[in-house]
């Protein structure tokens, strides 16, 4: 490292760096962070490329700028053509603040864009925001917006739009984004500080806040402030994305054309034709027949016939998406943690992944932390052990354990329940299965949270989508007051560890608390997390520069057709 670079870095640390940024550099120098993780967290806390390169040089690592958000392959780009995209049909709304389904997320995410982008290696990248800074303690975050971004109606995106959007997302009672922001950010905390500057004043310190406003926050699309709630679709789905809506037949077909004023450069495709499919089988058949180029959300089994077919390419993406097999901590049969641990120990996870998902999953260890989260501490692998399971049941006086697992008809869920039933038999556990329709399972009476089966049955299996950081899993499913705490598990020590984890800004502290959290969840097992999905999706071989997204978004800004 040359003298000038060293001086530049020292001056930055002395005069400009926030405590968080200095701490990051210290963690790199101390070996707590490797190069990838330093780049990831540096981007998260808004360190400039120059500072990150200098810091990497200080420890002898090759300097490298974070990858461009839309990096493309080195192949001559062919301009023109229309990509035909198949999405799973959605029942609910396409209005951003109400987005709740894979299909509607995919559709809205074509014309719509977010402040930040969490890439497939969990690095946070600039998108509509170019940089961000946290205050000491990470309670105030200041975002600089990209200048010159034009909405599809020609109007420039400014802080007024972002503020209006986030006030809706954090303040409207019907906003699905409240699952992220409840207790963290309210409408009063969203403040315009300049034409291109927005400040988020948080109710509690949140080290991962830039992730919360990324596309993995699902709803947080930036639309013009003039668009009132529930009029976005009628107004033509005006966003900042690479393609703008031309015409549509509701929940059936959407035709989009190139947004010539797109800030990220002219998209190669002329347009995109999106068709919504009632079943993934019909969608897979359409791809097979050459009538689609790109599909989302086909199952692993439906992807199988495409493997080895030269007309298609198979894309894979490990995700944090998982199934939560919950056992109620206040149920007479399951309240003893030893009993729940015994049930967890009967499950043959590698066999489950192979049998149910043809290997398209990574092992889960009954913790909220996907192993690819940088904050995930190293924990003991959960392995099948029938002898220990029997001992635990005996110690708990539950040799004749019997209970019912309730789930619903979705993909492999009924088969997963049947597998748990079969494994349980080896330890003398009598498990019954109740498979409900989606409407029954997620239905409920006037007091929804006290009546809906998925939160109130003694044992349930529920699907959970990908999140770039585990915050929502922790606050909603594991915390004692979590609104989706299906196991009804309450533990003050766990709550304290979760709170500390969420407010931690350095990875060392996060790992410390993630270890503590994992130790508790592995011991008490309110939730069994046996596997995390690897998304396996075929696309037509002629599709170039397209990658899978962890939550069914279809990003086509640089995609082209050979």
């Amino acid at each position, binding site marked *: 490292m040359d003298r000038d670079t060293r001086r530049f870095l020292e001056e930055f640390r002395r005069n400009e760096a926030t405590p968080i940024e200095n701490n990051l550099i210290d963690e790199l120098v101390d070996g707590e962070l490797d190069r990838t993780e330093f780049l990831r967290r540096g981007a998260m806390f808004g360190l400039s490329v120059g500072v990150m390169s200098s810091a990497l040089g200080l420890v002898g690592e090759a300097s490298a700028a974070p990858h461009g958000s839309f990096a493309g392959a080195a192949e001559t780009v062919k301009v023109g053509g229309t990509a035909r995209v198949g999405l799973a049909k959605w*029942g*609910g*709304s396409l209005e951003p603040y109400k987005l709740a389904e894979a299909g509607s997320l995919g559709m809205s995410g074509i014309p719509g864009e977010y402040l930040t982008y969490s890439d497939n290696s969990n690095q946070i990248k600039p998108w509509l925001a170019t940089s961000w800074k946290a205050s000491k303690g990470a309670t105030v975050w200041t975002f600089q917006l990209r200048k010159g971004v034009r909405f599809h109606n020609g109007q420039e995106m400014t802080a007024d739009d972002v503020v209006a959007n986030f006030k809706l997302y954090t303040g409207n*009672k019907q906003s*699905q984004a409240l699952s992220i922001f409840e207790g963290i950010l309210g409408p009063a905390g969203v403040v315009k500080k300049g034409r291109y500057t927005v400040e988020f004043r948080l109710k509690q310190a949140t080290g991962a806040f830039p992730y919360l406003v990324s596309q993995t926050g699902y709803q947080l699309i930036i639309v013009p402030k003039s668009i009132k709630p529930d009029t976005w679709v009628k107004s033509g789905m005006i966003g900042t994305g690479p393609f703008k809506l031309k015409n549509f037949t509701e929940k059936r077909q959407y035709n989009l054309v190139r947004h010539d004023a797109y800030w990220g450069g002219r998209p190669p495709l002329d347009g995109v034709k999106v068709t919504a499919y009632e079943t993934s089988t*019909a969608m897979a*058949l359409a791809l097979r027949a050459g009538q689609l180029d790109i599909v989302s959300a086909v199952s692993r089994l439906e992807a199988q016939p495409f493997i080895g077919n030269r007309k298609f390419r198979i894309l894979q993406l490990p995700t944090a998406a998982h199934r939560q097999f919950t056992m109620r901590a206040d149920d007479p049969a399951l309240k003893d943690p030893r009993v729940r641990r015994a049930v967890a120990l009967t499950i043959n996870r590698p066999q489950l992944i192979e049998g149910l998902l043809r290997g398209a999953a990574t092992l889960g260890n009954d913790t909220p932390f996907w192993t690819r989260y940088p904050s995930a501490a190293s924990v003991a692998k959960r392995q099948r052990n029938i002898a220990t399971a029997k001992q635990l049941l005996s110690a708990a006086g539950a040799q004749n354990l019997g209970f019912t697992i309730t789930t619903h008809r979705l993909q492999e869920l009924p088969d997963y329940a049947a597998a748990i039933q079969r494994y349980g038999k080896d330890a003398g556990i009598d498990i019954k299965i109740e498979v409900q329709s989606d409407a029954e399972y997620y239905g409920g009476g006037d007091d*929804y*949270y006290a009546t809906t089966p998925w939160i109130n049955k003694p044992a349930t299996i529920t699907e959970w989508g990908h999140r770039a950081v585990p915050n929502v899993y922790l606050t909603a499913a594991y915390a004692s007051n979590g609104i989706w705490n299906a196991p009804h598990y309450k533990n003050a020590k766990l709550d304290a560890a979760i709170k500390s984890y969420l407010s931690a800004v350095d990875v060392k502290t996060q790992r410390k608390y993630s270890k503590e959290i994992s130790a508790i969840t592995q011991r008490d097992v309110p939730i069994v997390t046996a596997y995390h999905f690897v998304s396996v999706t075929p696309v037509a071989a002629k599709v170039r520069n397209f990658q899978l997204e962890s939550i069914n978004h279809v990003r086509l800004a640089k995609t082209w057709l050979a």
Partner: protein
Amino acid sequence: MLRYILKRLGLAAITLFLLSVIVFGLSQLLPGNVARAVLGQFATQEAMDSFNHQVGADRPAIVQYLDYMRGFVQGDLGLSLASEAPVWSILEPAIINSLKLAALAFVIVVPLSILGGIAAGLRAGTGSDRSITIFGLSMSAMPEFVTGIILILVFTIWLGWLPVTAQWNEGAGPLTQVKHLLLPSVCLALVLFGYIARITRAGVIEAVDADYTRTAYLKGLPTRTVIRRHVLRNALLPTLAVVATQTSYLVGGLLIVEQLFNYQGIGLQIYLSAQQKDFTVLTSGLLLLGVLVLIVTLVADIAYGLLNPRIRFGSAE
């Protein structure tokens, strides 16, 4: 005749009223909640309450029903609870789509199955009779999605002749629409062929053995005339009734075929409305189907009477 039709229309109105009460009652028993369906399983109670209030789903059930019926009799189907779009704007394209598919399937299956049934009945006990009967039974026994997938594999994926989805692009001409509808229509025709052909065959066998047919032969009439004037006229009466009852299935009962071929028909729309507990779309869809069934039944009854001089409209009921 006019008195008969007026009486039938009166009965139809009562039937539709009862249908609306039954549909409304059953929709109250359906699990789930429209707000849950729209806002997703993870919506908070507060969000759901707010949504239900916004669309009026939090009012007493009887108030919702009376409000809805008041609009219905005035020709206003109201707004969808789930999407807040006018119900007619949702149902109209679905009904038109379903009628198109039903019409093509009807055009394919009715002549083919009647011809098959006549051929089998006239050659009862022969190899051709057995072939037609076994083919029809096999097709009827095979679930629609199996028949559909086989058709897609053969005609779309292997041969590449026909599109896999029944839905055409906006502005497509009639021939393109027929091309898109051919596979699902053939799928339906295969399912119904056995049933209609079997009924026709039984009617033909019965008519061939009847005294009036023997008398016609003894009068010296040529075989073709005997079959046209005496056998078919009597043999097709039960077939007519069966075809009429299948019409409602062809229009509103094609959920599996519509799902497989990604076709936005009324069957699929009603199913989605039931899933979402979208009471206004569900009730309107079923009532419109009810109207259709009553019209088809009425037409079939009139045709039955015209074909069968023994029926007198004045005493038909």
